[in-house]
């Protein structure tokens, strides 16, 4: 590992001031330390933001949440108001990693974790995300767990976070602090598709600090479902975050996002449009899933994700429909 300086910030302003050229923010380190050990990340300085006072989950009067970026994944999932008002978020966090990793991992770090594409993680291989212009061996090589939607010629990676899929379904926004002030970015504008700049996972500018995530109130039943290669402690092949409200047999409210299928958490707007006002039946759910997945462009070894996503959407919506 390349030597680096270490500074612990006590305030957000201090963190911004300490973030010089070559510096990287450190959360729990569960992704960053691994990438440094692999020689994929080579910061000259770590600015530790894990002990910043952004360490609380606040319940707003309207039922919305403001989640500090330094809140650990464990504390987020254990929080009463999250479990009761936004169960899909608690379930998504609990579906990720392991108990001991979630104790270290922060909300900010979870949002900004890098892809698990095996070429990205191997500093000896070409990879447009690590080294723009060097090529994408995954397209012809090992890609069974990579994207089926929204990929580019240059990169077919998926975003690995479970938490972010739930946040996409929940219409969350990210609070970001830079030297010129604070901005609030809707999650859909925070993450990006690889088009044009496969090295950039998000629209965050260098040195910008994530301070919190804002989640509006939900008010309908919700659920997270994840399919993986073993029962637990594995990244998603496909996952679904869904919320559904049914009145008189008709869909009156719906939120749907997919994980494991794209470079970013995939908000399934086409499916939502097809569902709103439709009968809450298996046929409508299937039609909606197919409407979303029509745009899928699977690679040689990941076409299985299309029926997997379709079936998981239908099953999750059926479960939510039965509960109402």
């Amino acid at each position, binding site marked *: *590992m*390349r*030597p*680096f*300086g*270490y500074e*612990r910030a006590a305030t957000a302003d201090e963190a911004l001031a300490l973030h010089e050229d070559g510096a990287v923010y*450190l959360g*729990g*380190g*569960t992704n960053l*330390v*691994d990438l*440094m*050990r692999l*020689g*994929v*990340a*080579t910061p*000259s300085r*770590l600015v*530790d933001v*894990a002990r910043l006072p952004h360490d609380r989950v606040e319940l707003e009067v309207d039922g919305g949440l403001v989640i500090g970026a330094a809140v650990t994944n*464990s504390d987020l*999932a*254990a929080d*009463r108001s999250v*479990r*009761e008002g936004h*169960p899909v978020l*608690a*379930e998504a966090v*609990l*579906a990720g*990693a*392991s*108990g*001991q*990793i979630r*104790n*270290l991992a922060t909300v900010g770090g979870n949002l900004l974790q890098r892809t698990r594409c095996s070429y990205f993680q191997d*500093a000896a291989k070409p990879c447009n995300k*690590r*080294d723009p212009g*060097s090529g994408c061996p995954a397209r012809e090589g090992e890609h069974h767990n990579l994207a089926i939607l929204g990929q580019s010629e240059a990169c077919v990676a998926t975003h690995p976070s479970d938490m972010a899929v739930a946040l996409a379904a929940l219409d969350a926004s990210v609070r970001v602090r830079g030297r010129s002030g604070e901005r609030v970015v809707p999650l859909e504008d925070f993450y990006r598709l690889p088009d044009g700049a496969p*090295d950039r996972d998000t629209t965050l500018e260098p040195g910008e600090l994530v301070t919190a995530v804002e989640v509006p109130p939900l008010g309908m039943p919700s659920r997270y479902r994840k399919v993986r290669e073993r*029962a*637990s*402690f594995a990244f998603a092949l496909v996952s679904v975050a869904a919320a559904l409200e049914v009145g008189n047999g008709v869909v009156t409210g719906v939120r749907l996002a997919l994980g494991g299928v794209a470079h970013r958490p995939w908000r399934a707007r086409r499916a939502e449009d097809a569902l709103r006002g439709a009968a809450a039946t298996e046929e409508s759910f299937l039609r909606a899933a197919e409407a979303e997945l029509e745009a899928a462009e699977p690679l040689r070894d990941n076409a299985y994700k299309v029926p997997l996503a379709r079936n998981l959407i239908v099953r999750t919506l059926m479960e939510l429909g039965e509960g109402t």
Partner: protein
Amino acid sequence: MDSANTTGDAVPVRAAVALAVNGTEHRLDVDTRSSLLDVLREDLGLTGTKKGCDHGQCGACTVLLDGRRANACLALAVAHDGARVVTVEGLAEEDGRLSAVQESFLEHDAFQCGYCTPGQLCSATAVLEEVRQGWPSAAAADVAADPVLDDDEIRERMSGNLCRCGAYPGIVAAVHAAAGRSREVTGA
């Protein structure tokens, strides 16, 4: 990002770190790159904590960090200045009596080669505390409900600890038994 042109000529950086390990205070001078795992094993000679993968994937390095289980291989020592750490060496009582979790692992044959066992023991100790505090797991049908530690819950909660010998049935039985008779051992 900028991995292609690492020059490798940067000078190692050292930092002062205080750690209370199994109740004993240590003041150390560490390379900023050192993991908590390497500091425990190499600097403090506490080799009970094992290095399985060094990537967070196996759980062999699990310790209690400020009362919570954590992968010591992913924790930079410098980032945990001032922390209380309990390793497998610190789970037993001061007079040497084994903890409820340790006793149960013996009774239920919860290991074969023993390499994963220190991590399993620390993890199981923390699992009992997490359940006591009402933390849910992915095994819950209703994430808002208080957890009940059945076998599915134990399997899910212990899934960050792999065992190459496949001692899983014994581990599940041991955690189950320990839940019935545990005393407070997290924290130190």
